[in-house]
C-alpha cells in the first residue's frame, strides 16, 4: 500500500482528536442555544465555555468573540461591517476574501521578501484625509511570511485608521496577543488549527460594532444571526486548547520544515525558498524551481501519495498564478514553478522523507525527460 503524506495544512489541517471528540459529543446533544428550556441552557453553557477558550487563544475578552461560518465570513464581516465611509487599504498579499470584500480598495504591494511595504502603506494613508480601514494579515497563507502588524498599527494610528488583521494562518502556530498587536479586530478559522470546517470567528473589541451581514435572530450580540453551530464551535474550542499558542509544537515543526528545505536544495540546488529572508511561520515552505511547472510537481507528488498545493486551495482548482508571489515582484518563471508545502500537528519526520523522495523522483524524471527532448542533449 502506498503511504500517504499530507503536507497541505494551510489549506485545511486534519482535525485533532480532541476536536473530533468535542464535535462528536456536541452532535449528540439536543437543543438550540437560544432556547430557554434546559436543553437550550445546556447548549448555551457549552457555547459560552467555548467562547472563553477561543477568546483566550488570542488573549481577548470572551465578549469580543463573534462566531461565524469561517474565515471568509469573518473577513467579510470585518471589512464590509466596519468601512462606514472609510477608505479601505489592504496588502496585496491578502486572502481573496479580503482582496475582494469591497470594490475600490487600495492594494499595498509587498517587498521581495513578502512583507507589506510600510513606506507605501504610509504614502497611501497620507494620500487622502478620509479615515481608513487597514487590513493586513498576520501571516501569509502561501509563503508563511509574518507581517509587521505592530508597525502597521503604529502607522495606522497616526492617521486614525482602524486595523483588521486576518490571523487565520498565524493563530495556533505563533503566539497571538490581540492587545499586544493593537489591532481592532482579528479573523480566525477553526479548520486551519485542527478544528472542524465550517466555523470561525471575528474577534472585535466590545466598542467596535461591525454592521451585520447575516440578519435575523439576535444571536452573537446582534452581529451575526443564525443558530450557533454548536458542534463546530465546541470543536473549535477543543482545537484552540490543543493548539494553544503553538509554542509547544513550533520547534519540532520548524525543525522538520528546515530539514525539508535543506534536503530540497540538496535534490535541486537551484530551488528557491520564497520569503525565507523574512520572519516566517514555522510550518510553511514556498519552494520554487524556475522552469519546472508547479502543476507537474503537484500532480507527480499526488501520484506518489504526497499532498501539497500550488498556491491557496480556493484558487488551486484553477491553478492561476499566485497573486501573492506576483505582489512580491517574483519573476513569472518563479511564480509558475512555486509549490506550497505546509506541515502541522500530525507531521512527522517520515512525512519529510516521503516528500523528499517523491519530489526527487519527479524531479529526476522530468530532468531526464527534458534532457531527452532538449536539442543540446
Amino acid at each position, binding site marked *: 500500500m502506498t503511504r*500517504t503524506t499530507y503536507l497541505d495544512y494551510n489549506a485545511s489541517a486534519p482535525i485533532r482528536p480532541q476536536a473530533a471528540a468535542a464535535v462528536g459529543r456536541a*452532535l449528540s446533544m439536543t437543543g438550540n442555544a437560544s432556547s430557554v428550556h434546559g436543553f437550550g441552557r445546556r447548549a448555551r453553557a457549552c457555547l459560552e465555555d467555548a467562547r472563553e477558550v477561543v477568546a483566550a487563544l488570542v488573549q481577548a475578552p470572551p465578549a469580543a468573540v463573534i462566531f461565524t461560518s469561517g474565515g471568509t465570513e469573518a473577513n467579510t464581516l470585518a471589512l464590509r461591517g466596519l468601512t462606514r465611509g472609510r477608505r479601505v487599504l489592504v496588502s496585496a498579499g491578502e486572502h*481573496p476574501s479580503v482582496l475582494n470584500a469591497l470594490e475600490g480598495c487600495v492594494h499595498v504591494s509587498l517587498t521581495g521578501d513578502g512583507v507589506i511595504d510600510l513606506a507605501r502603506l504610509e504614502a497611501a494613508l497620507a494620500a487622502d484625509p478620509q479615515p481608513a480601514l487597514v487590513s493586513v494579515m498576520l501571516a501569509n497563507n502561501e509563503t508563511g511570511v509574518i507581517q509587521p502588524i505592530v508597525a502597521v498599527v503604529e502607522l495606522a494610528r497616526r492617521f486614525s485608521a482602524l486595523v483588521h488583521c486576518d490571523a487565520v494562518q498565524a493563530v495556533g502556530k505563533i503566539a497571538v496577543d490581540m492587545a499586544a498587536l493593537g489591532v481592532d479586530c482579528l479573523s480566525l478559522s477553526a479548520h486551519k488549527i485542527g478544528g472542524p470546517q*465550517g466555523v470561525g470567528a471575528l474577534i472585535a473589541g466590545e466598542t467596535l460594532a461591525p454592521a451585520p451581514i447575516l440578519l*435575523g*435572530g439576535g444571536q452573537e450580540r446582534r452581529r451575526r444571526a443564525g*443558530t*450557533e453551530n454548536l458542534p463546530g464551535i465546541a470543536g473549535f474550542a477543543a482545537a484552540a486548547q490543543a493548539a494553544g499558542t503553538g509554542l509547544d509544537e513550533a520547534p519540532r515543526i520548524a525543525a522538520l520544515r528546515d530539514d525539508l528545505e535543506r534536503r530540497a536544495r540538496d535534490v535541486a540546488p537551484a530551488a528557491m525558498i520564497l520569503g525565507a529572508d523574512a520572519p516566517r511561520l514555522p510550518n510553511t515552505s514556498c519552494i520554487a524551481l524556475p522552469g519546472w511547472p508547479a502543476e507537474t510537481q503537484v500532480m507527480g*507528488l*499526488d501520484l506518489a501519495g504526497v499532498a501539497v498545493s500550488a498556491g491557496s486551495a480556493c484558487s488551486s482548482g484553477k491553478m492561476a498564478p499566485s497573486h501573492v508571489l506576483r505582489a512580491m515582484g517574483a519573476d513569472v518563471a518563479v511564480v509558475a514553478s512555486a509549490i506550497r508545502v505546509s506541515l502541522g500537528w500530525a507531521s512527522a519526520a517520515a512525512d519529510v522523507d516521503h516528500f523528499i523522495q517523491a519530489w526527487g523522483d519527479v524531479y529526476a524524471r522530468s530532468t531526464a525527460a527534458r534532457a531527452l527532448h532538449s536539442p543540446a542533449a
Partner: protein
Amino acid sequence: MANADRPIYMDYQASTPCDPRVLEVMLPFFGARFGNPHSVHHHQGQQAEAAVEQARAQIAALIGAEAREIVFTSGATEANNLAIKGAARFLKARKPHVITCVTEHKCVLESARRLEGEGVRVTYLPVGGDGLIDLDHLAAVIDTETALVSLMAVNNEIGVIQPIAEIGALCREHGVLFHTDAAQAAGKIPLAVQAMNIDLMSLSGHKMYGPMGIGALYVRRRPRVRLEPLFDGGGQERGLRSGTVPAPLAVGLGAAAVIARDEMAAESARLTVLRDRLLARVRARVPDVHLNGDADRRIPGNLNLGFPGIEAEALIRALPDLAVSTGSACTSASVEPSYVLQALGLPGGLARSSLRLGLGRPTTQDEVDRAAEMIVAAVARQRAGVPAIAE
C-alpha cells in the same frame, strides 16, 4: 429511549437532534476521510470534493432539483439572507419591489427591512386567522416592479403550510421570482421545485435531523436566477458563496436528505397519529384549548395551543420536565408575545397564552402521553391557583 427521569424534548421546530445514522456517515469525514474539497489537485481534496458532490445530489433529489442548483451555506439564516438580499439587489435597478409576509422568520423580515433602507419597496402581506396568506391579495399586490416574492413553505411557530404550488404558479405567470424558506418544510412535506415553480429555496441542516452549521440554497438554473453574493473570496459555490465548504457537514446534510426522502411518508403518518393523540388528550381535559393556525393545512410535527386565561410563561415554568417554547428560539428570550400569533388576530390575549409543541423523529407515544398529563395538570394548577380574572 424514553426515560421517565429525563425531561421530554418537544421543541423540534427550534432544533432537531442529529440522527444517529447521519452522525455515522459524517464522523469518518472528521477523521480518516478529511480534506479540503477545493484542493482538487491531491487525493485528500478529491475525496472530500467527491463526498460534497454526492451530498449535493442527495439534497437536490429531496426537492426535485439538479445537483448543481444547490449552494451550500452555513444555515437557513444565511440562505434566506442570500436569496432575498441577493436577488433583490441584483434586480433593484429595474424591479425595486419585494413581497413577503408578516409571519415570516425573523431573518426574512430583517433582510426585507434592510432592503427598505436601500430603497427597495417591500409589501408585507397579512395572514388570516388560519395563518395563511390570501392568494387574491398576493395577486393584487404584484406589479410590474416586483422582483421577488418570498413566502415560507411552513411556519416555524404554528406549522401551517402555505399554498406553495399556487403561489409559484402565480409568480411564474407574472414573471416574478419566487423564494420559499423551506427550513421547516424540507423532509416533512413533499417539495418539488419544478412542479411548484420555485426559483429559490432555503434549507437548514438542524431542522431536518442533520448537523447545525450547514444549510443550502436552491438556485434555479433554467431560467437562471442571478444573485449578488454576501461573501466574496475564493469564489466557491459558483461564485455565489465563497469560503471552504465544510465537507463533513455537507455530507451530513446529504445523509439527512436521503433519510428524510425515504421515510417522509411513513414518519408523517406516525407523527399525525401522535399529534392527534396529544391534542385529543389535552382537549379531553382542557376543553377550551385553542389550536392556533389552520387545523388541516399543517405539518404533523407541530401544535401551537392557546390556553385561555393562562400566561404561557408561567405555564412553561410549571413544566420543568417538558422542553417546549412560546415561539421562535431566536426571540425566545423576549417578553413580547409572538409576532406570528399576534398576526393571527387571536381573541382575548390568547397570543400570550400559547405554547408551541414540536413532535419529531425521536418522539414516542409514551412521551406524548406523559406530556399531555403534564400539560393538563399544569393548566389545572394554574387555574386553581390563580384568581379567575377572566370569569
